[in-house]
């Protein structure tokens, strides 16, 4: 039985969804307000510029070093986790990961799952997979709970329901829960907490994500603010953690700066309310905690990114969301426009390895390359540079070898290539260029009033009566400085 209700119908392509989002003034204002506030909070949390830059650099070092030892660290992680009593599972694809999770739930006759916030479980579309198998998987993070209640997907990786304001959440609660709740945020949260508290106690299995997996000690670190992560990982008898293979770091010293970068970049917090360090199931002399703990390590295209020295930098990401908070495009179109699990600048560079560039052909172009994302990235991922790399991959001719990004060449157009070749002729042969300038300035009155998409937002550009080439030549001929020197 499939209990899924189709999510709100959005346009089928990026540009169509962007148009819809741009026309939605409520959505625009929700995002602008929220992103402005998040930018301010981050700026306040990093008031010392030198400290911030030193920490970002350190964060970049740690992530790069971790990735350079990735195979060894993963092996060490498995050994230590196993020694701690945590069972490790490897999944190359989301299908495999879902099968593993489903198998574990089945083995315990589980029917109810409660989940802490996990973007990897979103990658897996775990809720739908389990719902199709008659297993209820309830989101326990307040934002995730709200989007699940409304049959939506998260619109932000840290704040899944950021596209809704309190009035919209109140209306949703009134409609779906049949309770009268005001627009008061505290009251809304209390309502959610009351419902979730019961679910935590009833759940057969708890699922969570992982922020950092620490190889040396075999520890899973999870940051959160609501306590739902701790409840999901301690209250049910079985805890299944799911994460990407890139989340491993060497030791506990590494996570101190990384957590600080993460919480300050994401929400401007010095540290989150809860920092969970999970080192194994309940021991015989302990009173609480799960009886079993599992970790599912998911690849889902990450090894493809790992194999490419430049694109490997995408795996540095610690999922703070600062790039989307500062992105002028994300701020205007919101997370759902991207149509994928990871929206915003980081989504544009991690998604191609997961689903193929041909499934997200417009993503690399949907950026003015303004650089705000790269400037705030806590681990210094050069996002604009990687977007440009993806643009290059995306216009590769069919049959181009080697294929370094899955689905490359999805924007190849012979017509556009020929246009650029003509542009090369014009700009490498001064005689052509001068002829072009002469024609454009001489016949400026004939400049077309419509110039493709440009004239949707602008009046048509009219060339000047004389080019700088002309003006400069005449001016410099008579220049006093020149005469003096000659």
């Amino acid at each position, binding site marked *: 039985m499939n209990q899924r209700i189709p999510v709100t119908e959005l346009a089928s392509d990026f*540009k169509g969804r*962007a148009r819809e989002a741009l026309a939605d003034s409520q959505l625009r204002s929700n995002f602008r307000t929220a992103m402005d506030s998040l930018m301010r909070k981050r700026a306040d949390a990093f008031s010392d510029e030198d400290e911030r*830059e030193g*920490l970002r*650099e*350190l964060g970049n*070092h*740690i992530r790069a*070093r971790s990735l*350079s030892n990735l195979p060894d660290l993963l092996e060490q992680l498995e050994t230590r986790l196993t020694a701690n009593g945590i069972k490790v599972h490897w999944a190359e694809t989301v299908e495999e990961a879902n099968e593993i999770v489903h198998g574990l739930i089945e083995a315990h006759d589980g029917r109810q799952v409660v989940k802490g916030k996990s973007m990897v479980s979103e990658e897996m579309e775990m809720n739908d997979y389990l719902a199709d198998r008659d297993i209820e998987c309830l989101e326990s993070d307040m934002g995730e709970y709200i989007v699940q209640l409304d049959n939506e997907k998260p619109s932000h990786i840290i704040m899944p329901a950021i596209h809704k304001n309190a009035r919209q959440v109140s209306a949703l609660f009134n409609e779906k829960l049949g309770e009268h709740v005001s627009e008061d945020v505290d009251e809304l949260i209390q309502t959610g907490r009351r419902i979730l508290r019961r679910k935590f106690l009833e759940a057969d299995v708890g699922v969570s994500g992982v922020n950092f997996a620490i190889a040396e000690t075999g520890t899973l670190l999870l940051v959160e603010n609501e306590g739902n992560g701790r409840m999901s990982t301690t209250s049910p008898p079985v805890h299944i953690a799911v994460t990407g293979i890139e989340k491993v770091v*060497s030791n506990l*010293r*590494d996570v*101190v700066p990384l957590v*600080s970068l993460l919480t300050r970049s994401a929400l401007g917090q010095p540290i989150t309310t809860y920092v969970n360090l999970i080192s194994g199931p309940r021991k015989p002399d302990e009173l609480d905690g799960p009886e079993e703990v599992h970790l599912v390590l998911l690849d889902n295209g990450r090894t493809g990114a790992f194999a490419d020295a430049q694109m490997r930098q995408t795996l540095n990401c610690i999922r703070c969301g600062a790039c989307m908070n500062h992105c*002028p*495009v994300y701020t*205007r179109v919101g997370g759902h426009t991207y149509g994928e699990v990871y929206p915003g600048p980081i989504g544009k560079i991690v998604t191609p390895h997961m689903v193929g560039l041909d499934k997200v052909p*417009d993503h690399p*172009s949907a*950026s*003015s*390359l*303004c*650089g*705000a994302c790269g400037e705030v990235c806590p681990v*210094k991922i050069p996002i604009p540079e990687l977007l*440009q790399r*993806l643009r*290059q991959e995306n*216009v590769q001719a069919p049959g181009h070898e080697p294929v370094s990004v899955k689905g490359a060449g999805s*924007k190849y157009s012979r017509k556009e*290539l020929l246009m*650029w*070749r003509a*542009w*090369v002729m014009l*700009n490498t042969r*001064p005689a052509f260029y*001068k002829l072009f*300038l002469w024609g454009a300035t001489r016949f400026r009155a004939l400049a077309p009033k419509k110039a493709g*998409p*440009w004239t*949707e*937002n*602008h009046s048509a*550009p009219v060339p*000047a009566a*004389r*080019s*700088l080439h*002309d003006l*400069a030549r005449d*001016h*410099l001929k*008579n*220049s*006093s*400085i020149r005469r003096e*020197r000659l």
Partner: protein
Amino acid sequence: MSELFYDAAPNATRVAPAREPERRYPDKPAEVSLFGTCVVDLFFPEAGLDAIRLLEQQGIQVHFPQQQSCCGQPAWTSGYREEARAVALAQLDLLDDGRPVVVPSGSCAGMFRHHYQELFAEEPDNLRRAEELAERTFELTEFLLKVCKVQLVDRGEKHKIALHTSCTARREMNTHLHARELLAQLDNVERIDHDHESECCGFGGTFSVRMPDISGAMVLDKTTALRGSGAAEAISADCGCLMNINGALEKQQQAFRGRHLASFLWERCGERQPGGEQ
């Protein structure tokens, strides 16, 4: 920073480039080449000419190599690396005489300063030439302020302006700081902050035609912020942004306009030189 944070550093195997060290500037040269840029060439030639006049006012002989065209940026940002390389090579050959190159646009200057080295990374000879070009490339406001160390004398009336800085100029060339410092030298000019001042105007080269809806929303917000600032006009040191902003304002049938910083400075501080054609 806490000692604890530095614990992890000694194990690092890869060191990311640190923040760029502050650029060291040469003494004022006797001659420079002006690289006008293709947008200025065709749409804002007066701004290019005013840049030449400002440089001459500093006693510098300006050359305008007549074979110049475009820096290659449009193809480079669109993913057409080979095509960008071909055009870049033509400019590299042209500007190979060792003269300092002044560019009245931060994003084109940034192309010379940072991206030519990426384009020629696999070609040792060209890479060396690209590095050498990067060393002697200056954005106009940077050159006036840091190399010429100008002291501007404001001859204009009281005036309020808003400053818009191109994103690449800001992030690759620090143009926002240089432009602010120059404008602060003008006694009768008040620079007024505008809403979301550091945000992109939505141009982004081919982005503006590939994603006209998003770009249009961005430029509408930018023009609204500029008009709402209380300034009489907008000043920018980048004609890509100006083409975007002015084109949008014209379409919106607004009287407000943006102007290149070089033209603004020349209007207020220009000085007739004896015997000189101005």
